[in-house]
């Protein structure tokens, strides 16, 4: 029996210029339903229909019909649908209400007025099902991103929903966290839970997918999962033909916060025309090293030297950059500040596949598009040193390829590139050298 049906559903966000979903008709059955498509295509909007966040929370205009677990989505408020549809968001840090694992998981049952005596049993069951039983009693702040996302899955399961919806649950996680969450999804699907999940790393799910839904430009299509082919891995770049002199170096440098050392006696350096990738576990010091190289942090000991020229810095959180009325204005802001009047914003927007979004307000974009907009905003012009912190977060394969091409162009122009990334495909494609940053130490990795 169908768990959810959409019938000619059309939806437009308030103030939106186009429909986010256009005449979508779909049937969702039990099993693992994988939703895929380009960034900004409408995946998150579709998923939010299942628990009524679209249209009840976001407003906007809706027509057509949607039913989930026998309930009319348009006529039923989200808080009622929550009993039947569990939802896991992208960012594990922004969806938690409580500070401890048990209280966080109990939040849903409490809202449903489940008798207090029964809630501990629900907590135990949900944590067990999400593979997070060992986290019971822990404080959320002490958990890794992957562990927190597992707690989010447990929180959704605690209400015993008919359908579990996950919106790119791994997009903010490192490789380890990603494996952790996808293993949970696979196990739940194997145990018979109805799951609807949008994900860019399809290769890790498609072997057990029972349905494959493509969402592109608001159009929804059900495809045969067996016919899905893994996209090719990005092609490894040829090394730059010219290697320039040293562009940056860190000499016996240490840095710390509040008396706690983060990096100690670090020696590292890179040349113009060279891409250096930083790898290592979360909290190992990759971002701190990038900030040190960029001059955002002063070393407590040792020294950091950079050759003159503009530094382009892409922080982990693209929202930290975006504030102009349009994507084009964001790029122009950087070019104006850099005094680079010869280049127009259109060039890099074209390269990163953002031409169609050039006039849009950056914060109205999907997370993957935002990441590209932020990349365009910092990489425009001719930076001498390029520092990228997890630049492919939330990006699909096509967007990643476009970013790789931009990195290659800047490198060939003589820019020194340093990127901190968990993305193995990106690292393999672009890195001339790989530095492992862990436990406050930096070591050269042998290829």
């Amino acid at each position, binding site marked *: 029996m169908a768990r959810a049906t959409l019938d000619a559903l059309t939806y437009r966000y308030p103030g939106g210029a186009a429909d986010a979903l256009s005449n979508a008709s779909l049937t969702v059955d039990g099993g693992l339903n994988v939703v895929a498509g380009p960034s900004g295509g409408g995946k998150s909007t579709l998923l939010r229909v299942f*628990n009524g*966040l679209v249209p*009840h*929370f976001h407003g906007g205009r809706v027509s057509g019909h949607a039913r989930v677990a026998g309930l009319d989505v348009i006529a039923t*408020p*989200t*808080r*009622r649908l*929550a*009993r039947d549809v569990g*939802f896991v*968001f992208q*960012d594990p840090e*922004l*969806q*938690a*209400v*409580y*500070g401890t694992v*048990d*209280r966080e998981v*109990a*939040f*849903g*049952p*409490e*809202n*449903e*007025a*489940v*008798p*207090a005596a029964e*809630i*501990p049993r629900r*907590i135990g069951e949900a944590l067990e099902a999400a593979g997070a039983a060992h986290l019971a009693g822990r404080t959320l702040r002490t958990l890794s991103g992957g562990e927190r996302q597992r707690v989010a899955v447990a*929180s*959704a399961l605690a*209400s015993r929903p008919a359908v579990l919806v996950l919106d790119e649950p791994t997009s903010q996680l490192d490789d380890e966290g990603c494996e952790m969450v996808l293993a949970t999804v696979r196990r739940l699907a194997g145990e018979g839970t109805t799951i609807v999940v949008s994900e860019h790393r399809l290769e890790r799910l498609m072997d057990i997918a029972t349905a494959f839904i493509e969402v592109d430009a608001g159009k929804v299509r059900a495809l045969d999962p067996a016919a899905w082919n893994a996209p090719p891995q990005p092609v490894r770049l040829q090394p730059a033909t010219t290697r320039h002199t040293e562009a940056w170096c860190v000499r016996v440098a240490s840095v710390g916060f*509040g008396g706690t050392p983060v990096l100690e006696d670090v020696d590292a350096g890179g040349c113009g025309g060279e891409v250096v990738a930083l790898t290592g576990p979360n909290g190992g010091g990759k971002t701190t090293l990038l*900030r040190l190289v*960029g001059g*955002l942090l002063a070393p407590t000991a040792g020294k950091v030297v950079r050759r003159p020229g*503009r*530094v*382009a*810095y892409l*922080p982990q*959180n693209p*929202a*930290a*950059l*975006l*504030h102009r009325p349009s994507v084009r204005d964001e790029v122009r*802001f*950087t070019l104006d*500040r*850099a005094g680079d009047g010869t280049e127009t914003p259109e060039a890099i927007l074209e390269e990163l596949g953002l031409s169609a979004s050039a006039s849009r307000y950056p*914060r109205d974009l999907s997370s993957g598009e935002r990441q590209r907009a932020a990349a365009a*905003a*910092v990489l425009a012009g001719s930076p001498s040193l390029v520092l990228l912190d997890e630049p492919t977060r939330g990006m699909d394969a096509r967007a990643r390829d476009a970013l790789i091409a931009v990195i290659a162009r800047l490198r060939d122009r003589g820019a020194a590139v340093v990127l901190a990334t968990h993305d193995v495909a990106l690292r393999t494609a672009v890195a001339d050298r790989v530095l492992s940053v862990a436990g406050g130490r930096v070591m050269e990795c042998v290829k």
Partner: protein
Amino acid sequence: MACLLIVLMTTNPAYKGAVLAAALCALAAGAGPRRISRLLAAVAAVATFAALLNFVSAHLGETVLFSLPAQIPAVGGPYTLEALAFGAAGGITIAAAILAVAPFSLLLEPHDIVDALPDALARSGAAIAASLNLVPEVGATFVQVSEAQRMRGWRPRGPRSWAEVVVPVVLTSVESSLQLAESMEARGFGSGPRTHVDPPRMSAGDWLVTACAGAAIALFLIASTAGWAQPWAAYPTLSPPAVNAIALLACALLLAPVVAWRARR
């Protein structure tokens, strides 16, 4: 709340100072000196600015410390001990008021508010929780944004230039709160009466703090009404503030959280 009421009830810097000391001790006991160090630096800066502003702008009082030529616009004229003392009293008031409300954001988690509200106010609780979520978020976002903009060539050049930092900070913080609100909605918050797996209960320490706060307000009110807690005026000639033991005892009662919160931490 008791700290705030008393500090606003009196003009006497002795009692304001006592309230400030109590609020500081309570905050340090609840949050730990390390967590409040930045807040204290900011409060000290604001209080000092307020004190100096009065010293520079109010050329009143009889004890002249030095004078600048009256022809100098805004700052010319006599600089008096009374203006300095009045400014310092104002600075203490501001500092005490900020520290009195700081536990609300430093010691309470958004869920503490949600739990404490009756079911009828559940929807308002969601809004309050989302708003409170802004508080710790803003500091971290400010660092991220100012760094990112600095790397794009932004430099602080007058008040207007700060829009390049302030606007993204506000937008990012609001987005975070909306995400939390969306998450709460998606988990059925506000759908009706709630149960509590761990119902909020008043501990002995909570009762102690509540009782002492109530007693402090009552005692200070009595002392003020009876004329024991004398007001203070810096002008025209500076005189030391009068101190009454009952009013001072009321201020001392505000130290109750030091006992209760230290045990909780």
